[in-house]
């Protein structure tokens, strides 16, 4: 019977059944419908609405929030070039333009035969093997002009993505330095067996003794978080693993999930043991779609070995399972309360806090949200003991940190170091010479100049979620900051006024400087925007949106001053510049099509 159904109806029926008509899974349903139908048509929304009895506004509101969901036709092949600054440094824009030319399609538009669309996406987490792109959300690394030619040919011939050469999709781990975590050799079940021998209370004591702090950047004490969640009132408790690794330049969670998934899932299971949770969820960023089947296979293997499911390892009453939720292109969902909203199938808008997730998280119940690396480290601690772990690193920052190194260096990839390692040690190890700057912890982190390379990676000096992007002296630090500012403007959720409008105003200011219309006045404007973003924004995205600009103005001011045409005042409006669209339309570029008065680019 289903054979006669049209493909859209079939796709909707299948996904609705898979998620048992549960409206909390609407984001997963939308994603699956798009995978099957290439976009989310009004007819698909009709059918979803009927099946789930949801208002249309709710479904459209969710679909409209996520960058990777399309409610207008976008082509059978949807190409998104990763647009982190590291991709730019490797020439992604030239490749994008080249591909657009080859396929005769304008960037951001869908080709007239509805075959292909080409656009950019925020960092896809392949910075050590870029330039990278996504085709229908599957990652392709190490793009070259030749590879663009080959892909264009595959697209023209309408070759199914599954039949494309496998080597395109190869993502390498590139682990350059292992320490206790990446080199642990822990077998599945080792940590759980040790924990069950100690009991839940004993495990919590070890965790507290280890001084483990959250690896997502904020550094909250993991033991205290688990304890607070365990002590909170609720009908049920949940474990959530934040694998929405969206901070540009960060890719360590990708490797942990690709090659150490058992450690991560085991850490979640340990957390469930401590807090008494029955359900865990791993929120995987949409850019890592290619990991989904692998992760589900690992989960299935763990179920078979009784490391998940009912009565784990024979421990009566210890019932816990994990499911994977995929994101769909929204950096803000890395903020824990936005992530929970997204898990509940909503727009990824950060909640008003307090209350915090430990008391009111998923479905308003006590929830632990931890980073991928935090859960992996918890497994290690359960196995080796808290005192051992606390002895690694510095007194305020116990253990090791995995750094994702990319940019201008000979050996990009993962470097695991005990906390306290200096920036220059990492630079030496990765083979970076002639270094101008290092951006630590991504755009929302800090930009360091050479004088600061003696500083240390640690919560008490430079805390980081893991990104470590290197820039040599050939790089223009203004363009680095401008790339980051565009990123924040694109990723602002739009909920609060200061961030929604402020990030766009900041982007416009940076573009104004780039176009040669800036003046010292604009520095004051940037500082004013920074103040209001810092003090008025709803969440961390707005708070940190000015960081890259302020850092680079303070440390690399000449990169900005080069762009000032006049030191006094420069009007934002330039007559000759305003004529540009007319010149494009008429195909003219002769002297008569230019204004010659005033300064700037005229004539």
């Amino acid at each position: 019977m289903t054979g006669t159904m049209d493909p859209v109806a079939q796709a909707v029926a299948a996904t609705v059944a898979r998620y048992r008509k549960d409206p909390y899974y609407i984001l997963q349903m939308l994603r699956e419908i798009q995978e099957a139908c290439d976009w989310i048509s009004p007819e698909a929304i009709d059918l979803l609405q009927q099946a789930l009895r949801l208002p249309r506004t709710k479904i459209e509101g969710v679909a409209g929030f996520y960058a990777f969901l399309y409610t207008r036709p976008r082509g059978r092949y949807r190409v998104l070039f990763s647009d982190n600054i590291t991709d730019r440094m490797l020439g992604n824009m030239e490749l994008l333009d080249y591909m657009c030319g080859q396929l005769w399609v304008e960037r951001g538009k869908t080709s007239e035969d509805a075959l292909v669309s080409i656009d950019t996406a925020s960092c896809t987490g392949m910075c050590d093997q870029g330039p990278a792109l996504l085709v229908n959300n599957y990652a392709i690394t190490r793009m070259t002009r030749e590879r663009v030619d080959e892909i264009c040919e595959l697209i023209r011939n309408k070759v199914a993505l599954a039949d494309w050469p496998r080597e395109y999709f190869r993502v390498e781990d590139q682990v350059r330095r292992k320490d206790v975590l990446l080199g642990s050799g822990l077998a599945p079940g080792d940590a759980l067996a040790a924990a069950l021998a100690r009991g839940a209370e004993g495990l919590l004591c070890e965790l507290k003794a280890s001084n483990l702090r959250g690896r997502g950047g904020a550094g909250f004490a993991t033991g205290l978080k688990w304890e607070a969640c365990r002590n909170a009132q609720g009908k049920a408790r949940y474990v959530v693993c934040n694998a929405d690794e969206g901070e540009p330049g960060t890719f360590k969670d990708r490797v942990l999930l690709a090659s150490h998934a058992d450690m991560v899932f085991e850490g979640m299971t340990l957390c469930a043991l401590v807090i008494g949770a029955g359900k865990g969820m791993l929120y995987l960023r949409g850019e890592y779609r290619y990991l989904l089947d692998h992760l589900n296979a690992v989960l299935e293997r763990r179920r078979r070995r009784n490391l998940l499911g009912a009565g784990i390892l024979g421990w009566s009453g210890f019932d816990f399972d994990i499911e994977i939720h995929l994101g769909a292109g929204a950096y803000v969902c890395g903020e824990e309360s936005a992530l929970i909203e997204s898990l509940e199938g909503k727009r990824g808008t950060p909640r008003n806090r307090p209350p915090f997730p430990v008391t009111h998280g998923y479905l308003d119940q006590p929830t632990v949200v931890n980073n991928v690396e935090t859960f992996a480290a918890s497994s290690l601690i359960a196995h080796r003991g808290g005192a051992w772990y606390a002895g690694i690193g510095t007194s305020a920052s116990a253990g090791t940190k995995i750094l994702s190194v990319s940019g201008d260096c000979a050996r990009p990839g993962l470097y695991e170091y005990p906390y306290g390692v200096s920036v220059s040690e990492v630079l030496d190890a990765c083979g970076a010479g002639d270094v101008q700057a290092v951006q630590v912890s991504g755009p929302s982190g800090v930009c360091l100049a050479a004088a600061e390379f003696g500083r240390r990676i640690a919560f008490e000096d430079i805390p980081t979620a893991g990104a470590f992007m290197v820039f040599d002296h050939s790089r223009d630090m203004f363009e680095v900051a401008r790339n980051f500012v565009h990123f924040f403007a694109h990723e602002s959720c739009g909920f609060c006024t200061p961030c929604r409008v402020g990030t766009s105003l900041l982007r416009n200011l940076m573009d104004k400087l780039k176009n040669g219309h800036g003046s010292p006045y604009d520095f004051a404007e940037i500082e004013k925007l920074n103040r209001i973003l810092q003090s008025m924004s709803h969440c961390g995205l707005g708070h940190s949106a000015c960081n890259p600009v302020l850092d680079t103005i303070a440390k690399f001011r000449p990169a900005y001053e080069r762009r000032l045409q006049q030191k006094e005042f420069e009007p934002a409006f330039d007559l000759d510049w305003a004529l540009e669209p007319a010149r494009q339309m008429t195909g003219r570029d002769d002297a008569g099509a230019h204004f010659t008065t005033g300064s700037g680019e005229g004539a």
Partner: protein
Amino acid sequence: MSASFTLDGRTIAFAEGKTIIQAALAAGVYIPHLCYHPDFKPHGSCKLCTVKVGGRQTASCTTLAQAGMVVESDTQALNDERRTLTQMLFVEGNHFCPSCEKSGDCKLQATAYDLGMMSAHFDHFFPSRPVDASHPGVLLDFNRCILCSLCVRASRDVDGKNVFALCGRGIKTYLIVNAKSGRLADTDVALGDKALQVCPVGVMLRKDKGFTVPIGRRVFDLKPVSAYVDASAAIEKE
């Protein structure tokens, strides 16, 4: 009334569970706000009501009052930032007060006047936002939308419908209506719906009556927004 806090030096009594802005407005003390409305669950998005508590800034509509709190609100620094927020709202949409039927009854305009906003300061974005004139009784002019979501909340929580919702993201966030066609005429909206009454700006305009109160005698022509105990009620009565 069991407890109190201080707001700009004044003692404000409050009942347990009330937010700072609820307690302040109940005591007749104005804190600027746009997305807050006494009848609805607080949203905390416009950030106009931001106050300083113990040196930290926080939205007063989502922060519970606590005994002994020291709250600053009517300060030069906070009002400067609020004025900037208001300017941001003006430039992200298309607000042409002289030709707007809601001029004088508009909370955005009144708040801007009250904060001493003399210009938009920033470059206008001039977004393209088509109007929806499909409904026989109501015109939707999205140019003026400030994304406060009051109509969304009113439709959902009071009218028991879901006529309005926010769609899109970031600066491209926009208001949608509950119809496949995207037209208000094809929704189940009714003229008596609370959702059509609560707009603090001029998105929702009744077609059959206009300028019933002449300019010069409108709500905020009579006294500034800060002089109303409940400005929302005053404009909805109009």
